[in-house]
């Protein structure tokens, strides 16, 4: 009995190609039309049922009243944006080394981890006034609150990523007698990229939440401050306007993270996760 040589199977086993153009079109066009449709429905409902603007303002009222104080709103938006970005950047600067330390040593992890969980169990709204007393009525307590809200998921996902490296690669690194540093830089960190971006997506959304929470407690500017003051004076359309700007800011920042990952790390597997 003779056995024939198996034909090369390489062609058959190719993984599927990346998404087609039409799918990308769907991703953009459908959400835009859905959003426009929602606003039309909203406007129609407000007019049809004659809902007073101090309860639920129509999109037209929101646009008119918000644009009337356009420069002021722009200033508040910029203030919030600054807090969000500073909080986000500081979160990254804290989370990355923290995750590296946590994964490097079980002893340090055991010592630090309870404190990390503790920072998360404190309600940030309750902490904010105390921080104002502690740090003064300036930008600092707002950034601290933003960081406290945003950094934790980032630490967890980076740490998970650093530990997700296949043990064989670590053995290969040891077999090459590579240092722990080059193992970190050449294997662990690149391997963690998909996890880091998953964490960044959560962190950027939470940074917006954190900044607004901080502005509610202590601020003389910012969209959170604008919502508080305008509702106090029954300028509900302006409050709604600020709310919409906040949500747009959240979505845009989130999408910037998504696009950054696709552009700089096209191989990253988290590109295939839903919502990305």
């Amino acid at each position: 009995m003779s056995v024939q040589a198996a034909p090369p199977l390489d062609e058959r086993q190719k993984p599927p190609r990346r998404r087609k153009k039409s799918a990308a079109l769907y991703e953009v066009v459908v959400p835009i039309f859905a959003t426009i449709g929602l606003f039309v429905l909203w406007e129609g409902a407000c007019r049809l049922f004659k809902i007073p603007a101090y309860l639920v303002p129509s999109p037209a009222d929101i646009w008119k009243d918000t644009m009337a104080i356009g420069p002021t709103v722009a200033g508040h938006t910029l203030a919030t944006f600054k807090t969000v970005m500073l909080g986000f950047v500081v979160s990254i600067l804290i989370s990355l080394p923290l995750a590296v330390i946590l994964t490097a040593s079980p002893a340090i992890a055991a010592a630090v981890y309870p404190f990390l969980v503790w920072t998360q169990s404190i309600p940030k709204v309750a902490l904010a006034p105390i921080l104002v007393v502690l740090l003064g009525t300036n930008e600092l307590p707002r950034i601290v609150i933003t960081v406290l809200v945003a950094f934790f998921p980032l630490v967890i996902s980076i740490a998970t990523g650093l530990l997700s490296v296949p043990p064989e690669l670590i053995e290969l690194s040891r077999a090459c007698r590579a240092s722990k540093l080059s193992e970190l830089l050449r294997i662990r960190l690149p391997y963690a990229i998909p996890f880091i971006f998953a964490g960044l997506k959560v962190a950027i959304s939470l940074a917006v939440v954190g900044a607004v929470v901080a502005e509610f407690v202590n601020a003389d500017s910012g969209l959170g401050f604008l919502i508080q003051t305008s509702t106090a004076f029954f300028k509900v359309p302006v409050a709604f306007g600020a709310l919409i700007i906040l949500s747009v800011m959240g979505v845009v920042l989130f999408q910037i993270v998504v696009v950054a990952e696709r552009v700089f790390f096209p191989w990253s597997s988290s590109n295939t996760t839903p919502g990305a």
Partner: protein
Amino acid sequence: MISLNRVTRIFNSRDGDQVTALQDVSLEIGRNEFITLVGPSGCGKSTLLRIVAGLILPTAGRASIGGEEITEPRAETGIVFQAPTLLPWASVLDNVLFPLRMMHRIDSTSTDKAMALLKLVGLKGFEGKSPRELSGGMQQRVAICRALVHDPDILLMDEPFGALDALTREEMTMELLRIWSERPKTVLFVTHSITEAVVLADRVVVMSPRPGRIAEIIDIGLPRPRSFETEASTEFHEASQRIRQLIFGTRHVGPGRAAA
């Protein structure tokens, strides 16, 4: 070349028990000899491989390469694992060059060396591709190039074809024999497949579990170069049958005669 003298390795398991992964294993491997290690799970095959790689130290006994005791990973060994474990962010070429980069041994000739290896395994023209564009078999070929790039004398392979489908696996077995004939190395090859073990080896080391030890070493006198036709020969069948007996005992497995 490689010498194992009464090598014993004991692991402490998580619940405090001691597990003897290897007991009194002695083995002499000559230069450019092709040795396959076959045996059921838990017989210490992979542990033995990692001791030769210098990734694990023996609890007792002595393991040496060229007379020098193995106390840490050495430059003359290259490893291929069951999973290709290529770096997803790096091109095929960069994956092959990766060990040299980690060893700080990269120089102007490195790229030529890597390209020659890729040509050797039939991946010429794929150097710029990303690993995920390759099939499982092609990825494992890249992993073999990666293990050979620093020109080691010893190639350690831990079930390298275990994750491939059956047809690709047979194809890769013949590929490996071809690569080995062009670049002779001392090869230590761990496998679960008796067929693979016999068709590749100069000697098959059959191991038995709990504690892991050598049951028998079988010389395979089959002529080289070997091909799929080799598997039809009488000697191939005798050797395979002997290994089966060693691993499964002389149990009769058939209708009405299951476990005694």
